[in-house]
């Protein structure tokens, strides 16, 4: 997205972000996870479709166990949850889950169809298959895998993808099982639905060769298109997920998980670069202020007394629940906690994320944001003095919780604050829907992986490779040829289309509408009508694939004229779906040729004299009158033809 648009809609400091990405040394690698459209799951014969809400389900309750020697460097927050005895509830929808997903039966053999598709895609990425696939277990203890590990295997290594800004190396192509779907979470439990567990996923990891946010989106798009063209991957929300590894010179490599939408990628990168630059500024400021590690001791002080007569509803209701208020000083941090790193996310938010993840508290309150939450200036200052802090120079953080959670939360806050003196901690972050990110967990060190002893190694035979060759997706050039030759698109339109994310919508619609409508009408609708409405500044987000499909199929059935397409799209967008599509279609439903003739007769009769005087303009006059009445309902060409005929027939006027 453009910086201008960014300033308009999102971020007050976009100007600062018109960053020269090559000068900050941006390097991005992408990992794409895409569900494969196999008939069966990766390690059992269950279907790969998700269960609808109506499907009856049972529940199974489990605990996961983790010992230090097994998982040295796993997510400490998850480990804490495990140790705390958080129970994991699994929803087991009938007919979508068998004993394998329940971890009640060993995995069956690796799904051959999934291996073939992965090999085919690997070939399209110029990767080299390994000679024998060894399935591994990757420890994951959040409960999303009933086993406590995810099964994953490298199928191919190396390879590359061409891009306008240089070659993008492929590191690995893996085949792995998708995790269970989280459906609920509360105090002491987390709930997953098992329908998604075991759906085959291909994971494609690029090298850190991407140098700009736009290039990242383009590369993700290219890989997505290639996956799509294989015809063997799932479509729809949640079937593709992108992770980004982002680093800048002097910063730290950050992993961002779960970027669902392609369009979000540049934003996530921009925001992450901004966050890292701001964090470096904070570091420099702290150094300038002379703040040192020993200014930040693990000091946790009960300051409940300050609030005994507080007018803050938040405080009084918490105190009545028996919670207390704990404070930790942050010497030298005054003003820094309110520094915005990303839209709506300040340095204080970063500290808050740590407190939430490690302490399980609801969040923090920091001195930079006070007075607020009903906490008064006097109370704010009282804490400054009870902590013996200088309110001009120092800051503090409060949590409202029990003593144990407070200790873990504030200790994490101090750790994070200490790290800000050095730079940027290595984090795995989760993408929010607006492109900002939040702290998820520290990055795992050397990943804890061990062999899946229940599954035999799978040799990649010549036979498999030959079969895979047949599934290899077409290259973009081959697709272009197909669009021009078979779909009869103009070369320009086809070229535009294969570079646009709307290609997916196009291919979906061609596939679904089949012979009902000519592909060029679909392409024109997407690339010309929809784009021109967008460039007029209309928000066309209500026009989803289903809306397009309905309109286009009506055109295919000759209920609507193709000229009605832009009109309906315009009205539908302006009314933001308030007028139902059915009503709009009715409004624009074409009129029959007889009706058209009657209309023309009527107009000619009314204007007879004028027309006979201005013979040479007769056609234009009648056309403009008729079009006022039938625009969008009849193909303009047909109107013109009929008007010509009628003028000749009724008034004897010959139109050239």
């Amino acid at each position: 997205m453009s910086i201008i648009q960014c300033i308009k809609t999102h971020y007050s400091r976009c100007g600062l972000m018109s960053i020269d990405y090559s000068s900050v040394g941006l390097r991005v690698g992408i990992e794409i996870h895409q569900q494969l459209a196999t008939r069966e799951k990766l390690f059992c014969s269950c279907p790969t479709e998700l269960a609808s809400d109506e499907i009856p389900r049972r529940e199974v309750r489990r605990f996961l166990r983790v010992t230090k020697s097994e998982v040295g460097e796993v997510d400490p927050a998850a480990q804490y949850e495990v140790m705390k005895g958080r129970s994991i509830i699994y929803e087991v929808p009938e007919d979508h889950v068998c004993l394998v997903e329940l971890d009640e039966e060993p995995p069956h053999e690796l799904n051959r169809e999934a291996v073939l598709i992965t090999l085919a895609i690997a070939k399209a990425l110029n990767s080299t298959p390994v000679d024998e696939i060894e399935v591994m277990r990757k420890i994951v203890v959040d409960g999303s895998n009933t086993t406590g590990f995810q099964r994953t295997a490298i199928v191919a290594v190396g390879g590359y993808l061409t891009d306008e800004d240089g070659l993008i190396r492929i590191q690995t192509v893996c085949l792995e099982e998708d995790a269970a779907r989280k459906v609920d979470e509360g105090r002491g439990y987390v709930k997953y639905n098992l329908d998604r567990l075991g759906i085959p996923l291909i994971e494609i990891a690029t090298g850190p060769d991407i140098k700009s946010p736009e290039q990242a989106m383009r590369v993700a798009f290219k890989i997505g298109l290639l996956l799509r063209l294989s015809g063997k991957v799932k479509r729809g929300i949640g079937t593709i997920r992108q992770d980004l590894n982002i680093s800048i010179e002097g910063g730290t490599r950050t992993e961002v998980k779960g970027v669902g939408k392609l369009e979000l990628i540049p934003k996530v990168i921009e925001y992450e670069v901004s966050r890292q630059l701001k964090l470096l500024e904070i570091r420099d400021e702290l150094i300038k202020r002379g703040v040192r590690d020993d200014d930040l001791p693990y000091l946790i002080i009960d300051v409940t007394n300050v609030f005994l007569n507080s007018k803050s509803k938040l405080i009084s209701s918490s105190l009545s629940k028996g919670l207390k208020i704990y404070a930790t000083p942050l010497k030298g941090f005054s003003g820094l906690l309110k520094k915005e790193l990303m839209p709506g996310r300040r340095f204080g938010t970063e500290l808050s994320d740590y407190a939430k993840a490690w302490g399980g508290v609801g969040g923090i309150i920091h001195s930079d944001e006070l007075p607020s939450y009903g906490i008064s200036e006097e109370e704010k200052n009282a804490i400054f003095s009870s902590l013996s802090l200088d309110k001009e120079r120092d800051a503090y953080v409060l949590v409202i919780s029990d003593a144990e959670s407070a200790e873990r939360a504030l200790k994490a806050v101090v750790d994070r604050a200490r790290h800000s003196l050095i730079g940027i901690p290595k984090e795995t972050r989760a993408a929010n829907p607006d492109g900002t990110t939040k702290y998820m967990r520290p990055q795992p060190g050397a990943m804890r992986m061990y062999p899946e002893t229940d599954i035999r190694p799978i040799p990649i035979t010549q036979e498999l490779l030959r079969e895979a060759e047949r599934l290899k997706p077409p290259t973009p050039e081959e697709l272009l040829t197909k669009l021009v030759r078979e779909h009869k698109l103009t070369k320009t339109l086809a070229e535009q289309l294969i570079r646009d994310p709307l290609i997916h919508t196009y291919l979906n619609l061609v596939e679904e509408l089949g012979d009902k409508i000519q592909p060029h009408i679909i392409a024109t609708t997407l690339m010309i009508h929809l784009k021109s409405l967008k460039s007029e500044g209309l928000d066309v987000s209500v026009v989803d694939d289903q809306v397009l499909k309905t309109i286009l199929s009506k055109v295919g059935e000759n209920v609507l004229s193709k000229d009605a397409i832009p009109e309906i799209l315009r009205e539908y967008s302006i009314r933001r779906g308030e007028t139902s599509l059915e009503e709009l279609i009715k409004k624009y439903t074409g009129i029959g040729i007889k009706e058209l003739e009657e209309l023309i007769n009527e107009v000619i009769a009314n204007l007879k004299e004028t027309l006979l005087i201005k013979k040479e303009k007769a056609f234009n006059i009648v056309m403009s009158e008729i079009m006022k009445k039938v625009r969008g309902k009849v193909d303009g060409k047909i109107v013109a033809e009929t008007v010509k005929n009628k003028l000749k027939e009724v008034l004897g006027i010959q139109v050239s």
Partner: protein
Amino acid sequence: MASRVSVGDRVRIKKGSLVYEGVVLPKSEFSSDKILVIKLDNGYNIGVDVSDAEVEVLSEGVVRFHESELSSSIVKGNGNLKLTFLSTGGTIVSRVDYETGAVRPAITATELLEAVPEFIDYASELAVVEYSRLFSEDLTPAYWAELSSEVGKLIKSGADGVLVAHGTDTMTYTASALAFALRNLPGPVVLVGSQRSSDRPSSDSALNMKASLAIFKEAPFGEVVVCMHGTISDNYVLAHRGVKVRKMHSSRRDAFQSINDAPLARIDFPEMKFRLLNQRFIARSKREDFSVLSRFSDKVALLKFYPGMDCGIIDFFVDRRYGAIVIEGTGLGHVRNACVDSIARATEEGVITVITTQTIFGRVNMSVYSTGRKLLKAGAIPGHDILSEVAYVKLSWILGNYPGLDRKEYVELFHENLAYEYNPVHKDSLFPVWSHEH
């Protein structure tokens, strides 16, 4: 090329334009000869065909692969029970070595306490003994003899509880062997296994072992029991009477269920609450009354009858001087009429033939049909509701410890309810009801 590469070496493999670096691992039985399995630095293993590759050893023996000796150790705890954890092998003590990928059926006290720290709260003294590293299908009557005298020694020397870790496949056999060998137990002996190995975060072993602590502390019975999950959730663990339990599923964690009898007790989690489910139990004896009869004969056979079975199979065992044969018959306890003569011959030769039922649930009744009556006449002994596996072990134990008995005494002893291997009352609720809603 590959001949000078050893498992544990760090190597660089050049193959075409690709270069791999990693540590050479032992490969699976299924890998082809040309394949070298290496662990890459990202943790993944891959198999590389090195017949057309250049392999360079970067450093030798980066990872060591060695077999450790059987170990044993004693730790002090804060409780008041003298406990021994005795490992025979099997899934419950199997762990994958993260570095090498090799499966190691070994356990140390440290590993046990990491899995179940509660041992420290219950035990005054905990001995962790690695007795053997055997998969349960490899155990024999001779092994039962050794194991039961070992457990007997521990009890005689004052153990309040012995926890035997065991592979699940033949757990009924070993549990029954212990139940017959250890007479007048002063406290429970618990066999524990797991259906998911202990190195998995989802292993059922920790909960099963934890449950044994509640049994040692609270159970009123002095019996050999099997402690396994009651459901596929981590809700509760059941303590089954060793002579009445059977592995009823090849993989589920609730595979073990009591047959023709109610489980003795149930331990609910996470509270770890002990609840007695069966009032019919053998109470703890005085320690001085405890005795061990630990011999087992290997001259007993267990056959499954099937339509068209060659009756010569029975003759074969008689000719081989076997002392007893258990035939798992159909329904109420039948084999084909053609085999009646072979059974009569066995009886004449002094071989005991016991008939049990393949239906698993229910009891044998050989008076209902003429075939049954003919079999009885030929000398076949009805096994009532004893499990076939338990009948086999009991006969092995009788033959081992009472070699001189005459046929009548032999049959009487077989029918004597020594460890509650027979249940005279089958309540309707003892038969599981399948769900037919979907």
